[in-house]
């Protein structure tokens, strides 16, 4: 069983990372770091670059947590990718960062967190930024 961390390079992602580390220690499970992008835009700030991922790996190693990193760019939303991974692999917990969205904001911009919360079978830990 693995803890899945939906990571984006931002303060929210860092908060989620810390929570994931804590949970992984608590459950004694490895962490699967997942970062995805649709790849539609030339520049996607949510897509972690080499430096970001290297930092994440360093932190996980320093904490002594076994880990794996998966980056996907297949033209699909983060929610779709995470849902698929949960369905096909043994995931015990999904950890994501969440932020406030108004109903109109959700209608126009969509809410990845909401989709994951509603679709995924396993428990979801939604972390706010510090």
């Amino acid at each position, binding site marked *: 069983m693995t803890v899945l961390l939906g990571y984006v390079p931002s303060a929210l992602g860092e908060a989620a990372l810390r929570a994931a580390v804590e949970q992984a220690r608590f459950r004694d499970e490895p962490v699967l770091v997942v970062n995805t992008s*649709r790849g*539609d835009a030339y520049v996607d700030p949510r*897509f972690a*670059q*080499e430096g970001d991922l290297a930092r994440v790996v360093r932190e996980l190693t320093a904490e002594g947590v076994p880990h794996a990193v998966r980056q996907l*760019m297949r*033209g699909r*939303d983060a929610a779709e990718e995470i849902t698929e991974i949960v369905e096909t692999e043994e995931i015990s917990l999904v950890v994501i960062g969440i932020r406030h969205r108004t109903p109109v904001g959700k*209608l*126009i*911009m*969509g809410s990845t967190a909401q989709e994951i919360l509603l679709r995924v079978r396993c428990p979801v830990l939604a972390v706010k930024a510090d």
Partner: protein
Amino acid sequence: MTGMTTRPERGGDPPPRPDVGSGPVAAPVPGQPDGPAPADADAGSTPARDRAQYAVCAFLALVGVLVLVDAARTGHAISAADAIGPKPVPILLGVLLLIVATLYTVDVARGGTGEPEAGEDVDLTTPIDWRTVLLLIGAFLVNAVLIDRLGWVISGSLLFWGSAFALGNRHHVRNLLIAVALSLATFYTFAIGLGVSLPAGVLQGIL
């Protein structure tokens, strides 16, 4: 140029053709999935591609014949001001087309290929995504057919929304809002502001 594909000028100049081993060396783009050089992209499908090129030759020959037939039909109208009339140029073009079609066929038979145009946004390792292309054409046709009846604002919105949908964007509501906003903005700025002829269609009198 390994690791970095060149982009042709959006106007038709072909990319600087990388001869093997020459060309400035550039670092691979971070995070970009490996882009292969176009030359080795379709090694497996080369025989199929060769055959498809014959269609181009056939097309050229067909156009040549069409031009010649039409030229024969054209009236012969020489006057004092015009020594040769309207026929010679089409006849010349038709003949040249047939010649080029032949030379092209020879080139293809000898294994010559035309590189499909590469570009920043183009990933040549995958075959043509017909679904997307057909959906785009569909969105375009919807606009073409409906524009006079429903007006630019509605049919233009459908065009934009349909195109965004065809290209894979899943934010349907957002796309609809952007589409309508764009159509209204362009209608007011251009049709009413600059006098460009865009039909109001069904919404005549409301806008």
